[in-house]
């Protein structure tokens, strides 16, 4: 089993009309043994930038801490919050710095720019892909891709987006042993963030 599948994860981010959603499961396991059902994988960086980290749990947590470190200094020096595209560039840079001994994490950046949603997915070496519709990461990306491709449509409202993202995630993790055991969804709009827990199969 690849090291990226050791702990298990399912993360998806989707764009709507002037809103963006990012959702993740909350399982953390050691191979087949489930250890935690409340493991956080999506982190708020600023009011308009969220990052989802899929992969080896220890690297997820370490990267979360190093990003917190870097962002605090960024805000103090630049006297403003970091924007989504600059943040994505930062994450990509940090991952490539470890080119020959990488973090086993595949991040998703979801944010809101003044002119609309921002989505970015990366591999463990920092190669980014920017999309207008959705990005996925984790141990059931095939499932997530299939669900998102058929369910996504442009210009969804925050409520529609929430519904779509939730159904994509729940259906995908149900066919993956390594992910599931609870889920959380964050909806970003210009007026604020709403976070909800999903009720799904706990297996």
């Amino acid at each position, binding site marked *: 089993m690849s090291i990226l599948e050791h702990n298990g994860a399912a993360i998806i981010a989707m764009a709507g009309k002037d809103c963006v959603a990012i959702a993740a499961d909350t399982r953390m396991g050691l191979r087949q043994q489930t250890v935690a059902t409340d493991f956080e994988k999506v982190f708020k960086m600023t009011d308009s930038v969220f990052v989802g980290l899929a992969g080896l749990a220890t690297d997820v947590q370490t990267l979360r801490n190093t990003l*917190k470190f870097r962002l605090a200094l960024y805000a*103090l020096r630049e006297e403003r919050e970091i924007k989504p595209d600059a943040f994505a560039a930062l994450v990509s840079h940090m991952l490539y710095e470890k080119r020959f001994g990488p973090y086993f994490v595949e991040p998703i950046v979801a944010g809101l720019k003044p002119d609309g949603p921002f989505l970015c997915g990366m591999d463990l070496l920092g190669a980014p892909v920017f999309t207008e519709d959705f990005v996925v990461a984790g141990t059931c990306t095939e499932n997530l891709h299939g669900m998102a491709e058929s369910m996504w449509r442009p210009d969804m409202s925050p409520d529609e987006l929430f519904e779509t993202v939730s159904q994509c995630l729940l259906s995908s993790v149900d066919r993956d042993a390594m992910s599931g055991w609870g889920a959380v969804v964050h909806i970003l709009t210009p007026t604020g963030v709403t976070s909800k827990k999903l009720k799904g199969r706990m297996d």
Partner: protein
Amino acid sequence: TRQCSPELADDDDGSAMSRRYDKVVTTFSPEGRLHQVEYAVEAINNAGTAVGILATDGVVMAGEKQKVTKLLEAPKSSEKIYKLDEHVATVVAGLTADATILIDAARVAAQRYAYQYGEPIPVEQLVERVCNHKQLYTQYGGQRPFGVKFLFAGYDRHFGYQLYLSDPSGTYSGWRATCIGQNANAGQSLLKNDYKGTETTSECVTLALKVLHKTMESLSAENLDLFALRKLDDGTMVHTVFPHDEVVALVADVKKELEAAEAEAAAAIATSSGK
């Protein structure tokens, strides 16, 4: 009479001797002084005043800005007051360029501590790190010391609200209220008389403005920065650099209060001398 060589000359005032031992900071003078460090302090004594006061529910700091002219593009943020971390801020007296180097080092040190220990750096720890950095420049490398004094205001769960002062030698001390920069002695004596230790943040704001009124040529909202650090009930730390309009109003209030007190005192003298 024998011609005394400079080394043996009577050096009660130190000026003849200091010229031989002040070129290099890493050398003690025969009287055991580091002249470069003392000269650094001199540079600060000519800088804009800064004052810090501990309140029961926060810490107040204020600083006199350099002369503001019409042509100068006003900086977005303060040249005197800087945030170091969510729970610590500092006000500067001295060479701004030197200060920004130390401020950046302090910010990084605070983040490194938080990264390692998962909690905000205790205020004294941060002060000590900055001071140890300053001390390096009094013992190694032959580089001049930093010409800055800092007042650090912070809150941590170990000791609550704290106020520290640090100088170019790398020494620091904890204070309940203190003053640095130009006319600091005058400010300090006012604090000694008027500071009780039971003041709230808003009372300390008034006291800080009174101090600056004494040390500055003319107290005006244009050339001062006013700051307060407080912890809210839910634990969040709030850094407030008072907006210009509020400062204008506060300065006006303080001036009125002081004028009234002066008038009262003058009236009392008049009646007593009239008897």
